[in-house]
């Protein structure tokens, strides 16, 4: 595939003796939304963390817009900021206001003028529907609001792709939908997204491709209709029945 934005070819990774990623092959095209699911410990977080070099893989190739990712600091620096990341634990900077959280990257890493960065930050706060919280500290916001600030912080870097690592898993149930709504909107606006999540309603709504992982392997990879209607493997069927039974 020539227009793949992200390409993983035979990617392998070990934590010590533990083989956490086994021959991962996956592509994400521009504008595509890929949802990765699977039981905990299956390596799905490690896949997204490898894509933006928070983890190093030991074998195989990862390409971003055609360029191979290496551990050369220049290569790492060139992709960070291009590939946005939303964490399970938000990871907002607690000592900075919401606005400062959003403008730090654009000002320091991109050299954007402060006034432009503030303008951009306010635009994205509007977009995640918390325009009036700009001067608060993260600790003064609810979990759902914090995660939306984290999404806005990533968007302020105007990334080519956004990675989500279980973005709603740390949230109280009543706050999950406000975050998912924002993510659905992003998807509808054409953002390229790789989302690790157990929210199958969200997956059905936006996913172009479903990836099911178990024990470090990609067990199934298909379009959502086929994936939900007719899972090919026993492992996938079991997993789906477990998380969809409620």
């Amino acid at each position, binding site marked *: 595939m020539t227009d793949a934005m992200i390409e993983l070819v035979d990617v392998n990774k070990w934590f010590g003796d533990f083989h956490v990623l086994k021959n991962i092959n996956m592509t994400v095209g521009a504008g595509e939304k890929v949802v990765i699911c699977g039981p905990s410990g299956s390596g799905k977080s490690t896949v997204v963390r490898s894509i933006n070099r928070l983890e190093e893989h030991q074998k195989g190739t990862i390409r971003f817009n055609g360029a191979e990712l290496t551990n050369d600091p220049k290569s790492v620096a060139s992709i960070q900021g291009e590939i946005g990341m939303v964490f399970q*634990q938000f990871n907002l900077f607690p000592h900075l206001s919401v606005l400062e959280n959003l403008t730090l990257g654009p000002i320091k890493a991109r050299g954007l003028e402060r006034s432009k960065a503030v303008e951009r930050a306010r635009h994205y706060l509007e977009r995640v529907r918390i325009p009036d919280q700009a001067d608060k500290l993260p600790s003064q916001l609810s979990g759902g609001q914090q995660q939306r600030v984290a999404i806005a912080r990533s968007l302020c870097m105007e990334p080519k792709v956004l990675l989500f690592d279980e973005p709603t898993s740390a949230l109280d149930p009543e706050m999950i939908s406000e975050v998912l709504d924002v993510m659905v909107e992003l998807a509808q606006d054409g953002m390229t997204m790789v989302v690790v999540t157990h929210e199958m309603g969200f997956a059905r709504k936006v996913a172009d491709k479903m990836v099911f992982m178990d024990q470090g392997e990609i067990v199934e990879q298909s379009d959502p209709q086929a994936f939900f209607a007719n899972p090919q493997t026993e492992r996938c069927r079991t997993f789906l029945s477990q998380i969809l039974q409620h």
Partner: protein
Amino acid sequence: MMKPIFALLLLLGVAGCSSSGNWGWYVIDPTTKSGWINIKFLVSGMGNTILISVIAAAISIIVGLIVALPGQSSKRGWRIVNRVYVEFIRSIPLLPMLFWVFYGLPIVFKSMGLDIPIDPFWGAVITLAVSDSAFTAEIYRSGIQSIAKGQKEAAQTIGLNYYQTMRYVILPQAIRRILPPLANQFIYIVKMSAFASVIGMQELTRRANELVVTEYRPLELYSLLIVEYLVLVLIISAGVRWLERRMGSDERH
């Protein structure tokens, strides 16, 4: 060996009390002329005690950070540099280090063809700063390590480099947390600056010593000396509490 020490202690004890067994507060009685002169002489050492301590603490805070950062490196060589410095420096007692710097270092300089005199002031400052920097480095280490890994990762994903991550994300949070132990170290420096008296630095303790020699009133004079340090440390404590309130904590609401 023990006899002269006992004799000295006895002498001090006797000198501490007046002949009738009463205290001789007249030495520092501000209502008498000589008492007032004595007080002024003693308290005027305060300036140097503060100056030595503040400069030494400032250097220690900078050197401590420079020493702490390689300790966080993923490269083993850098971590070893950090460990060697910390373990070596913190194992040297302050007084021998002071002697080495004041009497020994000029000889080292001379053998290198450098003519750098070391006066009591800078001898004391260098010794206190270097000695303290090993402890400051360890305090920084605990502070930096207490910041969750996710903070560094989040900084990376918005494109910040190592320096920017430290400067804008990690250190501002770490320093808030280590303010109390850093303040502790500063108080420690103030007290250890008393050692500067033995190389002739005219600070609080030296002044008291000199007056004791002429007035034979160690009990009163050293009592006042203790009160002088007490006042100094209480002022620092109040200042630190003010600073902590101003900087707030991560969890402020």
